[in-house]
């Protein structure tokens, strides 16, 4: 193959790749929306809304993004464009800057790290763009709106249940999310204040970071269960890690009755709770968050509301009510019917 032919093929491949990537921008709702920001509360036929997700590789964030897209379709005057922050502060901040530069009418931001995004979110507010922070609420802004699922409360509700369930002088292991992650830190803080500070008899025999990942938690628990023959409970800052740790000991003798606590209320955790393999989790209901976010942004853009700050609940999922949430997931297509 001569050099010219090779260059032509290379150029064609690159062009095809660029076109396919350009086609990856996700737009839902009314696709005819045009640019411009004529004032947040001024009535228009169409509003362009940017949703900046924390990371679409994160299963909860992906679920929330999907629910946002579905909910946006219920509003004829809203065009929602979804952007992926890739769990990276720098990328998320650039996305916010781009939303300002592209004069969206509104921006909904799921912060990766509230402190890191705060000045950029403030820029959006100062630019006159209707701004909502969600999951979590970003504190310290002048102006702005929020629809929240509070990570402290999510951890606290499970920790309060564990206070009654974890036996005296128990040995527990603790699995944390990525270092410095806002959600992991807040949930761990809740466990400390609501459980460990009140239960000095409980001993943490191992604690480490498993980066929200099932496989990393599984490897850690395989090793921990060999080093510690008596582990009474797994305390995890999310459900993925809790299910990974359970996978490691599910057929091991001596770990039959191990208690396991997570956060998120993922479909997998809910199924395990129903099957009596996992103890409890608290739900972040992505559908409820999406519904409240889209209602809030619509009300703010159309002038029905001047300011919105609302919270969704953090319902506890145990064996008693797991079926209710499994039905919810079946309806959302996340569990097979």
């Amino acid at each position: 193959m001569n050099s010219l032919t090779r260059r032509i093929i290379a150029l064609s491949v690159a062009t095809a790749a660029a076109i396919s990537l350009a086609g990856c921008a996700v737009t839902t709702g009314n696709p005819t929306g045009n640019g411009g920001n004529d004032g947040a509360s001024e009535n228009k036929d169409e509003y362009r809304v940017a949703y900046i997700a924390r990371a679409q590789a994160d299963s909860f964030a992906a679920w929330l993004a999907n629910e946002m897209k579905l909910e946006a379709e219920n509003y004829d005057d809203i065009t929602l464009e979804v952007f992926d922050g890739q769990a990276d502060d720098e990328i998320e901040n650039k996305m916010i800057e781009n939303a300002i530069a592209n004069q969206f009418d509104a921006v909904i931001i799921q912060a990766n790290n509230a402190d890191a995004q705060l000045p950029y979110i403030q820029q959006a507010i100062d630019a006159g763009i209707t701004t909502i922070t969600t999951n979590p609420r970003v504190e310290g802004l002048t102006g702005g709106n929020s629809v929240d699922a509070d990570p402290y409360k999510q951890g606290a509700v499970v920790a309060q249940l564990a206070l009654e369930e974890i036996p005296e002088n128990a040995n527990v292991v603790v699995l944390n999310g990525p270092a410095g992650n806002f959600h992991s830190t807040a949930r761990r803080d809740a466990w400390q204040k609501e459980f460990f500070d009140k239960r000095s008899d409980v001993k943490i025999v191992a604690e480490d970071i498993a980066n929200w990942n099932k496989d990393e938690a599984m490897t850690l628990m395989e090793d921990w269960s060999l080093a510690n023959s008596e582990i009474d409970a797994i305390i995890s800052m999310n459900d993925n890690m809790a299910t990974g740790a359970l996978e490691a000991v599910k057929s091991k003798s001596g770990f039959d009755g191990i208690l396991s606590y997570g956060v998120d209320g993922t479909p997998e955790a809910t199924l395990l709770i129903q099957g009596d393999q996992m103890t409890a989790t608290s739900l972040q209901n992505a559908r409820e968050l999406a519904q409240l976010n889209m209602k809030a942004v619509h009300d703010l853009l159309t002038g029905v509301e001047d300011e919105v700050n609302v919270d969704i609940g953090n319902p506890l999922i145990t064996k008693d009510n797991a079926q209710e949430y499994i039905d919810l997931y079946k309806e959302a297509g996340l569990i097979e019917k």
Partner: protein
Amino acid sequence: MLSTLKNIEVSRYSIYIILLVVVVAASLLSPNFLSSDNIFNVLRQVAVITILAFGAMTLIIGGMIDLSAGAVMAFAGVVSVMVFKSSENMLLAILAGIAIGMICNLVNAFLVATLRTPAFIVTLGMMLMARGAVLELTQGQNVLQLGDFVLIGQGNLGWLPIPVLALIAITIVVWYLMNQTRYGRSVYAVGGNEEAARAAGIAVERVKYQAFLVNGALVGIAGVLFMSRVNAGLPNAGVGYELQAITAPIIGGTSFSGGVGTVMGTLAGALIVGILGNIMNLIGIGSYIQQIVMGAIIVIAVAYDVFSKRGKAKTTILKSDAKGDTIRPGMFASGPGGGKSKT
């Protein structure tokens, strides 16, 4: 001191001696380490990474690299899970995973071998494409309720865990390919000196295609084993696995310059990394310190590789001069572990 160290001949067995030292140290640090439960535990844990490492080793010996292994593994594994859930056919599911791995690597091979695009860039692009593809396929959600699919990753054949059995079988196959076939010798020759290999009549492009396809098959198998082991189709799995896969062969003596490396060295490298991770977990060392230790090992291994080659190159040139030989292209392109460094 430095000149003395440079003159020391690198022992062929140094990696195995290091492995032995690590095993002895680990057994002294934790009484649980040498229990049969823990030995199988370590082997199960290293199986996926070692299989990926054999693929990475093949490419590095051939003068290439694959940064897409982690993402392609996730893509292949999730597709395999989906095929199993829709067909209930284990063989079909495994073949689907292998096919995805090979297709992705066929694209890599086309861009690297035919269009002569740097492997680093091509596989970086493939990493993004494969990750995007698996996230799009699953909409970012884990695939659950795998049924009997977990038997591959969690089951035993007699007393031997299936992932360990797969690791042993793949080690033998890769060893055979690299040491007993024309393909293996060609990979060493291409990585040692591509132009010399071409001058010697080796079809360099074909060898690169073959190396990528072998890597693709291994990545596909790793994906199937991974998803089965964790009992879920995880679209965000394998992040950073490409670097872990590269670490094992480098520690095991594979040269980043190409042309040098062994299957057993890679296996030893993977075991060293796996055992160090295991013992640090057993004695309660946190992940921050673990990262420092792993990073230090990689740096020391690569520095040792570069340092020892400088010594070897100088010795070789001196010997050639003394004999009055002319250094010809390809004269060092040889079999396993004996290739010439480009540095």
